[in-house]
């Protein structure tokens, strides 16, 4: 079958690879009908994530049709249309039972390695390095889905792929980011980063009752989208000082809830940004926590900092201000299974049409080129959907 494979920095190829097969009786095989490139795939593209091997199949935002199931699969059968969430969860461990699906104890075959890095291992993920399981990804014609009764959500209406595909990651991720912000009715919510997760965080902040949403980015088409579709007040950080502007918008209090939907690939400006790049170059830190630092500085005292953005390892952040301002920090990979049903409901009821985010729709074979376009933010590229 055809698949997009990783071969090192800025080297994604379309390759011929073997078709996946049922290995465990709880597996399903899905024929992919739509699959997306995610911002976090760019960390792989830029070779910032250890544990990738040449030839690994990429992708963690797929959907398609079930074509085969193992003997013990009960909730799915061939012919079912499903969206597959990016986290792999067993459904039986203490964490799964507590609805903390992205912390599943049993789905990472390389848990020992992850434990060495972090103390404990989170769940395995599709197409996201051997540290996080080594599972083949979904930017391919077919995908093996382990624990098939636990992850995939069945789509029973004839709603098009484009509207439900983002249940695989970015819509629930943006929603959990807003939920983690503990929004109350009078709150101003500031969202750093207007990529796909940021866009969904903005929309979710309204759903959760925000009074005002402020969106911060530097890419005009993203800010335009945040304003048009997300009804957000926007700040282009290349043209305005973010702290000053936020204080102006909040009467000097600072936004009550701050969401960092940027993560490690932040582009800081001024001295701070340069200092981050130097430290990173000198291997003194793994991340560029520019946004985290700015959010800590701007956030209202006693406010909440929600971090769906991806960080790699050590980040140099001002812990003193965080503590003295009594901020609450909430973070984590998305507990996908919590959100699939309720968010599918919102889509089916017409409360949101997530397809607004799509800027490019291409065939799988155009994937390598699209990785480059997306990475370079060329051609107004915000979200790429591919059809095998």
């Amino acid at each position, binding site marked *: *079958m055809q698949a997009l*494979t990783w071969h090192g920095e800025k080297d994604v190829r379309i*390759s*011929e*690879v*073997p*078709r*996946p*097969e049922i*290995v*465990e009786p*709880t597996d399903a095989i899905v024929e992919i009908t739509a699959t997306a490139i*995610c911002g*976090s795939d760019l960390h792989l593209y830029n070779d*910032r994530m*250890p*544990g*990738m*091997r*040449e*030839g690994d*199949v990429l992708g*963690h935002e797929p959907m398609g049709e079930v074509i085969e199931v193992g003997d013990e699969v009960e909730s799915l059968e061939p012919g079912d249309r499903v969206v597959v969430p*990016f986290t792999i969860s*067993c459904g*039986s*461990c*203490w964490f799964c039972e507590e609805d903390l699906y992205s912390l599943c*104890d*049993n789905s*990472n*075959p390389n*848990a*020992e*390695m992850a*434990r*060495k*890095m972090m103390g404990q291992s*989170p769940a*395995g*993920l599709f197409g996201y390095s*051997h540290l996080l*399981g*080594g*599972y*083949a990804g979904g930017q*391919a014609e077919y995908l*093996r889905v382990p*624990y098939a009764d636990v992850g995939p959500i069945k789509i029973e209406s004839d709603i098009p792929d484009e509207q439900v595909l983002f249940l695989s*990651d970015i819509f629930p*991720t943006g929603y959990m980011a807003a939920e983690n912000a503990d929004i109350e009715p009078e709150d101003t919510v500031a969202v750093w980063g207007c990529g796909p997760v940021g866009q969904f965080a903005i929309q979710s902040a309204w759903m959760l009752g925000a009074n005002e949403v402020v969106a911060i980015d530097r890419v005009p088409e993203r800010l335009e989208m945040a304003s048009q579709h997300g009804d957000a007040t926007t700040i282009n950080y290349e043209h305005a000082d973010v702290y000053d502007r936020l204080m102006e918008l909040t009467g000097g209090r600072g936004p009550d809830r701050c969401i960092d939907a940027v993560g490690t690939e932040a582009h800081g400006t001024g001295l701070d940004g340069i200092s981050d790049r130097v430290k990173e170059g000198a*291997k003194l830190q*793994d991340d560029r926590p520019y946004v985290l630092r700015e959010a800590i500085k701007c956030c209202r005292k006693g406010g909440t900092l929600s971090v769906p953005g*991806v*960080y*790699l*390892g*050590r980040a140099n952040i001002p812990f003193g201000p965080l503590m003295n301002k009594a901020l609450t920090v909430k973070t*984590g*990979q998305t507990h996908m299974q919590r959100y699939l049903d309720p968010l599918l409901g919102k889509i089916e009821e017409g409360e949101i049409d997530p397809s607004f985010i799509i800027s490019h729709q291409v065939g799988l074979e155009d994937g390598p080129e699209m990785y480059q376009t997306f990475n370079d933010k060329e051609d107004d590229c915000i979200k790429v959907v591919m059809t095998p």
Partner: protein
Amino acid sequence: MSEYSFDSAADEVSNSMHPGADANGSRWRRAGSVALGGALVAFGLRRRSLGGTAIALVGGFLTYRSLSGYLTDAGGTEPVERSITIGESPDELSDLARDPETLERIVGHFAEVSEIDDDRSRWSAGGPLARELSWEMRIAVDEPGERLRWETVADDSSGALFDSWSLSFDEAPGDRGTEVTLEVRFDPPGGTAGSAAVERLDVVPESLIGTALDRFKSLAETGQIPTTENRPSERGRGDFL
């Protein structure tokens, strides 16, 4: 989505050198971290067969032991111990562990185990070392719901990787099930197997035991051990390509 970095391993190395950590324990952890960092790098570059992995495991231990002179006054080695919490009762877990088929599956990442009779089993390290490292173990302690201990039969002619393999089961607080502790006393031969394997400093006993416990937990909680067997990649199909 989230990601992790090699550099954390470096942190762990310095943590393990923190004063107050007991000297032996910290040395083990240090070796573990360094070796595992190496293993990850190796992992990023290539992946061997299952047999090769077993060689690496044994090699890692032998190299470590020879480098550090990690011997007690009595000439034996300190046991390596790890714990995990599993969401089942002590009785269920000790029954499961007592089943020879379970043993085969939870050590499948480095050894093959075949049943001789109800109390005895033959273990061999996977791959080419199987001929050099093959030994018999028998159950020496069998207290359902509390303790299970396998000991190597002393007069075995071939080499043994362990002296003993012991599991203990303690109820965890709340409804979290059971705290299972695995303690293994390693004692591989220093001779031919050692020299054959000695260059491959890859993984140490702690990692080997940690993975065995992970596999036991997954089997107990889900009835299967997570696998990427048959995984497609441009390298072909399977885990170890």
